[in-house]
């Protein structure tokens, strides 16, 4: 067990830190929260800067245009960029964390060449079309269907909870290509151009009042057959290959950020007098333990990244998400108690974060689904009823 940097890791860390110190002051001011085109431009500018400095696709395989870095080095990247206050991945989330890795793993050489460099350079933005109104936790119940006409799939249906849809170039789309097949069969994975005729984007307002998600309505949208990644009707497997790809470390930056918030909370409590309340202090102490251990768990998962994923190890992403999403909600509930009536100001960043944290136990598999996965795949309990 070793938590110190190797010589290579230390060199990488110092070089990155130096680059961040020089680069971050040169960035333009961040755009307003609701100006999506400006946010796209900002996020893609940052991605391009990373690309130019050799940090894009750090841990992607070299044949996919990446640098083949170890998970530990990638984690250092996530840690240091967050600590330095660098921009988030933002609009490039789906491209870099899901669609890109899927194409890298399952695409043809031509498909990789077509899409991956543009993702890494920040030239093209992807969004995700998986969820549907009637298929929430039960993703495989999706109904959006594609009819093959010669070299084209004609797609009709609707998708929901799509981030950055207004500004995306491509959508990674799951569609039903065989309605007679069992639920998990008969699904295909398509790269749909967002500019195609028949694609309508409707903003979806969340309880936080923001419009970061959208609904996609697809009315006879043509997608060339060459935009299918993987075999026809094999899309469920294709998408699952990478759905857990980053689960262990996807929240690495957020955990670093939560630890910083927690320290801010302690200082705020000291300044506003709430520190004298042992019950609040002890909650802060407990959260410190949880987030310290969550960070260590992230490091563990990074190191175990290429270990065989059987038994409990296979569900480590679910374990992490279950723990982290609840800890994050507890963090911001504690922030509210610390702020008292000031927490009723929706303009306070901790209150905004409290609202958005409500989605953490729901999105990308509810806590209930995560617990099913842990029980059945991790602990080998009989299939639930």
């Amino acid at each position, binding site marked *: 067990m070793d938590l110190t940097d190797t010589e290579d890791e230390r060199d990488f860390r110092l070089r990155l830190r130096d680059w961040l110190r020089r680069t971050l002051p040169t960035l333009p001011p961040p755009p307003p929260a609701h100006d999506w085109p400006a946010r796209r431009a900002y996020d893609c500018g940052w991605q391009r800067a990373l690309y130019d400095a050799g940090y894009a696709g750090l841990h992607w395989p070299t044949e996919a245009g990446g640098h083949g870095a170890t998970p530990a080095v990638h984690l*250092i990247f996530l840690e240091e960029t967050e600590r330095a206050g660098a921009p988030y991945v933002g609009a490039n989330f789906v491209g870099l964390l899901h669609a890109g890795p899927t194409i890298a793993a399952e695409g043809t050489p031509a498909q990789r060449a077509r899409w991956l460099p543009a993702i890494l350079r920040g030239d093209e933005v992807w969004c995700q079309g998986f969820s549907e109104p009637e298929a929430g936790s039960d993703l495989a119940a999706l109904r959006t269907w594609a009819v093959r006409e010669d070299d084209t799939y004609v797609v009709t249906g609707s998708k929901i909870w799509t981030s950055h849809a207004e500004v995306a170039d491509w959508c990674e789309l799951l569609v039903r290509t065989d309605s007679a097949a069992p639920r998990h069969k008969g699904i295909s994975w398509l790269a749909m151009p967002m500019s195609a005729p028949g694609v309508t984007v409707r903003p979806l307002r969340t309880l936080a009042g923001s419009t970061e998600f959208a609904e996609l309505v697809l009315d006879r949208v043509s997608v060339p057959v060459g935009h299918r990644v993987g075999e026809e009707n094999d899309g469920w497997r294709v998408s699952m290959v990478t759905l857990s790809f980053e689960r262990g470390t996807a929240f690495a930056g957020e955990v670093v950020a939560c630890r910083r918030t927690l320290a801010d909370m302690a200082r705020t409590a000291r300044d506003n007098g709430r520190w004298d309340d042992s019950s609040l202090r002890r909650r802060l102490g407990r959260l410190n333990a949880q987030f310290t251990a969550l960070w260590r768990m992230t490091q563990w998962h990074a190191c175990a990244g290429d270990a065989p994923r059987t038994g409990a190890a296979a569900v480590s992403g679910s374990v992490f998400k*279950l723990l982290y999403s609840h800890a994050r909600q507890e963090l911001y509930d504690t922030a509210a108690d610390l702020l008292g009536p000031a927490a009723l100001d929706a303009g306070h960043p901790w209150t905004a974060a409290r609202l958005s944290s409500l989605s953490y136990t729901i999105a990308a598999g509810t806590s209930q689904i995560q617990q099913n996965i842990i029980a059945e795949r991790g602990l080998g309990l009989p299939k639930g009823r």
Partner: protein
Amino acid sequence: MDFRPTSDQQALRATARRFLAARFPRDRLRRTVDADAAAGADDRLDRGLWRALGEAGFFSLRLPEKEGGAGLGMPEAVLVFEEAGRALVPGPMAATHVAAGLVPGAADGAAVVTALDGPGVVEHLASADAVLLTGGPTVHVLPAGRGPRPAPDLPTTVPLRPLDPTTPLHRIPGPLPGDAGQRLTGTDAQQLRLHATLLTAAQQLGSAARTLDMAVEHARNRKQFGRPIGAFQAVQHVCSRMLARTDLARSGVYAASVTMTVSEVSAAKLLADEAAVRNARDCLQLHGGMGFSWEADVHLHLKRAWVRREQWQPPAQAEELLALALLDDGGIAPRNV
């Protein structure tokens, strides 16, 4: 950075597990429980077992080789103490381990060394050869022995009816005189407390892992309403949360063994206490009436977890310390370089 145990560390853990399975199997545990329960307050720690633990290196493994140790570190000590916790080995394991090299006989298990960490309770006092006093700025040691006043140099010792049948306890009310016992010079009291705290956390972790295994085993086999109870979502979700709690505690305990910072050791103890107590409670609940019987082992895990929770930094202390650490930036500032 490679946080995973090395193959040597994995081999060490496997050896410890095999050793305990052979030397302290379940029927041995149950005989100890029944004998101790029958004896009441009469303390009878098994000195043969203690010497065997000493010979196997449980107490000496961190001593330099020239002092008869294995020259290993806290990560290794934590792995073998996790196994001891899993097997519910009785006795003042952490105290004797930190006394190795300081108190004659501790390293090889010839001596049983217990500890009094601040005012509170001391375990296995009547079986002990020495008592470490670790509550102050310096560490002191007292001789101990059998009889009605097992530690004549302590002001008052009140035997308790032990909650955990294999952990006899004496209560020592009030503060000790500052000059009690013999001062161990050259010993860093804070370091010694940190080590004992983390080793106790490791035992809690092992107990939590064991009650998780017991719960899963039971859920697979016990049938109600025509199917294994593990097919019921309510049971599945309890088991899932037990696993999550155990994994979080393990991350905390292993990381603390590497960094040995004050706040990570507190985090490890806090999370391991919680995992041990709550897993035992959940395991008991899933076992239903069976879990409530003396013959099941689950109550032994729960009671031992309750005892260890009060030893070496109870949760309230750990939480206060972890809160204070936040004001000092508690490990959040870059450290790796």
